[in-house]
């Protein structure tokens, strides 16, 4: 296989990681909302934890994006 073609294929494969991270981020917010609707009084106190979870799962999607960009541009 041509090296350039393999690079582009790899970038496309890395994009799967971005999609999976989207599932993760959605899961974080869905669970938060589920809990918040059951007990709205406790929801505000957990916002910091919500964003920690968001940041953690978002980072992996961003890493996949970095790999894709490195394969295309770098």
């Amino acid at each position, binding site marked *: 296989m041509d090296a350039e073609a393999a690079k582009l294929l790899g970038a496309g494969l890395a994009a799967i990681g971005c999609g999976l991270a989207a599932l993760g981020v959605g899961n974080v917010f869905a669970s938060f909302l589920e809990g918040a609707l059951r007990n709205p009084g406790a929801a505000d106190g957990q916002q*910091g934890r919500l*964003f*920690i979870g*968001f*940041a953690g799962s978002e980072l992996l999607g*961003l*890493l996949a*994006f970095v790999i894709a*960009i490195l394969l295309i541009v770098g």
Partner: protein
Amino acid sequence: MAPRYEREFKVAAEEGKVDPMHQFTIEPLGSWANWDMNGVNIAFTNSALWMMITAILVIVFVQMGTKQQLIPGRWQVAVESLTGFIDNLVQSSIGKEGRKYIPYIFTLFTFILFGNLLGLLPLGLVGVHPFTFTSHFSVTGVLAIMSFSIVLAVGFWKHGLKFFTLFVPHGTPIFMLPIIAPIEFISFMVRPFSLALRLFVAMMAGHILLKVFAGFVISGGLGGIGTGLIVSLPSIIMMVAISALEILVAGIQAYVFALLTALYINDAEHLH
């Protein structure tokens, strides 16, 4: 349409696409281009210029709100709600000892927030191209290293060599130590990288996305009325939506950076 833009559109069309990475080029400004010190170029760049603009804006914004009127005006309320927000964040994640870190975390938060938002301003319409300095790893890396150094300095200053017990969570069985301690150590050492990488990639990704859609709008419009309606119109609607999302991301990333810094400092203050 101004002839200047027409020319730019034509150039973009002839090249076949808009280069989405061009917005991140760092250029020396004016006659500073050849300044060097011991062979290292220390030119004043567009990145440095926008960092200075951000710093000045933050200072002006805060100064205008600290006249300490008995009955606060709108500006003072805005500044007080911002300081109150950071105060709340630090209190809830570090606790009482967190008060001395409020200036640092407030500076970090406002600097990143203003930088992110300034980079999104549509100043291109008047010919000034805003530069998002937070979309560069060198800038976010320095910010992250600053946070990490504070964590290390506070940790070793306060706890001495006991700081290393950070790598041993409470109640770890002794035979699990060879596995747990290296994992904790790696997760600790990865922190500055993840902190810097998150901000830089989130900002870069959004800006690339905007420019890619802008390229669709231009090439669709040049293709005629048909492709204009099918390609350009949805793209430009998409761009409006993405711009709104980017404003949200700008706020969230600044918040996450400040929050994680506070949490890491909390680790150093209290160990586990």
